[in-house]
């Protein structure tokens, strides 16, 4: 597939991307590895997290580390950053055995880790964040803000990052915050940089910039361990790929000599079906949701679409195109300024998500952890949360009924949990997502809006979610699926709606859609979108001229 052929202009700043920068050659023949891990074991009460784990990272190498959620990646990272102490096993840097004593010692050894959840102080500035704990001082106690900012500025020049040292981190975009994390890691004169899902929240141009930084960082003295679920990225950035599964080391393959299919098979330990489109199940003609002329005050314009019974309608578009905003507007989380919504042929007014849920319209947020789950509560509480009325009489909750319903859905969706009373936080991302789905199924929602249903979920669990979505529509539910992963959209959707800058720029049927024509619609600017004819297969009207009130 096309790698990163997108414009490199983001946020008004020009990122110095030069096309001729070559992938630095990996030297596999170095006698002493930069980092070698062997025979590492780590157990927690009741769980063996790592068993005889091994891994080696060469000089000037980007090593991709992949494994399903729960495979042991984060445990391994915590061992390397000195947060955990291994039960047994050895760590060697340049052939010398080391014992990592706490986070500070890890940094001194040249190991820096960029965690998936950023470790930044939102209320401090960029420079203050980077040099926290190492701030330039006057007389031991007083801070020199001037020296601090100058130091940061020199660092940014050296590693070629565009950041304002004095900007408050909380005001930055996620991509810029990522840059702060990286700058911080590099400021430690790190030799081994470990990145956990660094691109989870980045758009393609930002990913390209990040990869550029990584290539600039790697040299004869350094190496990178790159953890990601995005298979196409591994192909673009890594030299080798190490696969771990269930706490054990499986295999390492040369990226150039492997296929992504092979890597996925190693990860999940079984064959996975490829990119087929939905099987013969055909949605009915019955329109369950009709959106006409929908607009919000400052962003969405003239949104028109129909959702059919038994259909998966995919929403594609670049980040910030307005897909989540449509979902939020429909379920009443954001106010709409114009347009109407019909459910099963009847016009409805949806003032908030509770009303939407009562009408059988469920929204599964992209931010599962913050907006979809009570992480500290158990599985059954989460599943029953939206329909407590069903499980209570005069305000008193019937725990038994809740438990048995929860158990039914645990079996039905194959949620991997020891029991219905397990705390949601302790489950993997895929299983957490299934809990959220179960919650809306209990509520008996006929229309489900999935926003990034597989974000942060490993490949095996993704397959299960896909199968689940297909089952749901086969049972007559209707689904709107918002996803940033094109293969996912292509594979699941009966039809695909593409958005750009707050408008729908076109619809594609699953027969005609491919990555190229979706991207073409997603990058189309508004003027041409209004003028250009829609693809012939689209069942929708041509967009009307601006008809919205502010």
């Amino acid at each position, binding site marked *: 597939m096309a790698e990163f052929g997108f414009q490199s202009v983001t946020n008004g*700043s020009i990122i110095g991307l030069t096309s001729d920068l070559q992938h630095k050659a990996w030297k596999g023949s170095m006698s002493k590895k930069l980092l070698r891990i062997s025979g590492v074991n780590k157990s927690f009460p009741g769980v063996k997290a790592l068993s005889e784990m091994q891994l080696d990272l060469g000089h000037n190498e980007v090593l991709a580390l992949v494994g399903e959620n729960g495979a042991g990646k984060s445990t391994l990272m915590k061992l390397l950053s000195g947060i955990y102490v291994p039960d047994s096993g050895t760590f060697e840097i340049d052939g010398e055995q080391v014992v990592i004593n706490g986070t500070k010692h890890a940094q001194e050894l040249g190991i820096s880790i960029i965690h998936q959840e950023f470790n930044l102080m939102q209320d401090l500035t960029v420079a203050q964040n980077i040099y926290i704990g190492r701030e330039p001082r006057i007389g031991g106690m007083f801070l020199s803000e001037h020296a601090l900012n100058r130091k940061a500025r020199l660092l940014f020049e050296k590693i070629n990052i565009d950041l304002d040292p004095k900007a408050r981190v909380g005001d930055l975009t996620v991509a810029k915050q990522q840059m702060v994390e990286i700058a911080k890691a590099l400021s430690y004169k790190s030799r081994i940089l470990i990145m956990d899902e660094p691109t989870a929240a980045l758009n393609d141009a930002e990913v390209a910039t990040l990869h550029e930084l990584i290539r600039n960082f790697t040299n004869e003295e350094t190496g990178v361990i790159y953890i990601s679920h995005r298979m196409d990225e591994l192909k673009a950035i890594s030299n080798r790929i190490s696969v771990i599964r269930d706490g054990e080391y499986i295999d390492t393959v040369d990226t150039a000599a492997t296929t992504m299919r092979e890597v996925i098979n190693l990860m999940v330990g079984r064959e996975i079906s490829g990119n087929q489109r939905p099987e013969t199940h055909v949605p009915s003609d019955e329109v369950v949701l009709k959106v006409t002329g929908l607009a919000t005050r400052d962003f969405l314009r003239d949104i028109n679409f129909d959702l059919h019974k038994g259909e998966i309608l995919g929403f594609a578009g670049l980040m910030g195109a307005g897909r989540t905003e449509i979902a939020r507007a429909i379920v009443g989380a954001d106010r709409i300024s114009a347009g109407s919504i019909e459910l099963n042929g009847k016009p409805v007014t949806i003032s908030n998500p509770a009303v939407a849920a009562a009408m059988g319209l469920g929204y599964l947020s992209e931010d599962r952890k913050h907006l979809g789950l009570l992480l500290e509560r158990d599985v059954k509480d989460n599943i029953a949360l939206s329909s407590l009325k069903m499980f209570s009489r005069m305000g008193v909750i019937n725990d038994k009924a809740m438990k048995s319903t929860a158990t039914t859905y645990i079996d039905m969706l194959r949620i991997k949990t020891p029991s219905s009373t397990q705390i949601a936080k302790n489950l993997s991302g895929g299983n957490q997502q299934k809990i959220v789905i179960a919650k809306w199924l209990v509520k008996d929602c006929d229309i489900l809006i999935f926003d990034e249903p597989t974000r942060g979920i490993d490949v095996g669990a993704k397959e299960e979610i896909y199968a689940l979505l297909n089952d749901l529509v086969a049972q007559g539910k209707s689904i709107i699926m918002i996803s940033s992963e094109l293969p996912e959209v292509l594979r699941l959707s009966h039809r695909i709606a593409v958005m750009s800058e707050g408008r729908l720029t076109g619809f594609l049927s699953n027969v005609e859609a491919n990555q190229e024509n979706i991207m073409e619609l997603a990058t189309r600017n508004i003027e041409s979108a209004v003028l250009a004819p829609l693809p012939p297969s689209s069942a929708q009207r041509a967009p009307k001229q601006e008809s919205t009130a502010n």
Partner: protein
Amino acid sequence: MTLTKEDAQSARIASNKKSELNTRIRASFQQLLAFASLLALVLFFSVASSNFLQAANLSNILLSTVVTGLLALGTTFVIITGGIDLSIGTGMTLCSVMTAYFMTQLGLPMILGVIGGVLFGALIGCTNGFFVAVLKIPSFIATLAMMMVAAGLALVISGTKPIYTNEVEGFQSIFALGKSIPGLVIPNAVFILFAAAIVAGVVLSKTVLGRYTYSIGSNMQATALSGVNVTKWTVMIYTFAGAFTGLAGVIAAARLNSAQPAGGMGLELQAIAAVVIGGTSLAGGKGSIIGTVIGALIMSVLTNGLSIMSIPQEWQQVAVGVVIILAVYLDMVRRKKTTQ
């Protein structure tokens, strides 16, 4: 090629400058808003009553700000770390008692008594810090317990009777006497409050301790992962904050020329209210000393002004409550606007 590079560079500098300016404007706007509310209150009461803008009354307002103001200064640090300190009210009382005890029972010289009182406050803070940072007891509970312990100890040490300090030479002048600017006598205590505010302000914005105060409140885990000894610094922040409780205790004793062992309960809430009105977030990470000073002044201007307008005391409390809600709500609305 070089041209575009330079263009990019200058565009980058320009955009940096712009965002820097924005941050500055926003920060000063926040303080401006609190200050404007203070001025509006002063203006309102001046118009409402001719007695308000008298030198003697202004001096009164400043005097009544001193004790809660000092408590608020210390607790600003604790609140910015994301914690809360409920022990400052009775802690202050205990420090009063200890100061008087040092000077009368132990017969220490005045200056040692004062230093002893301040250090005792730091000790209370240090103990709170130990509970919070080392034993990991939530600050609300740890300082709630300390509030009760301090109230009890103050009664035990004093034998439930006031300790008079009449015989300690010069002690009362800490509070009362002062320099007179033509037409306006400013008592020493007010100078002490402002000196303390300057020290607190410098420590919060210019020192390592202040930086870690913000950092811990903003993201404790991230601070720890960055190699900062969060436990040590939390204890130090609470200790530093406690010294202000001690100082408040000394001033309270000097004001009455005696240590009154039964009071103090409830002052902590007034101090916290002043901090919150001053724009410090109870969620941690945000706040300023100038805000706290203005917040404390707003509280005393309000109480004083309402008294002058002969509004009964019970209604004054209602008014203060309303002001707290207003101040915090307006602050939230403003924050929402600036982030959009």
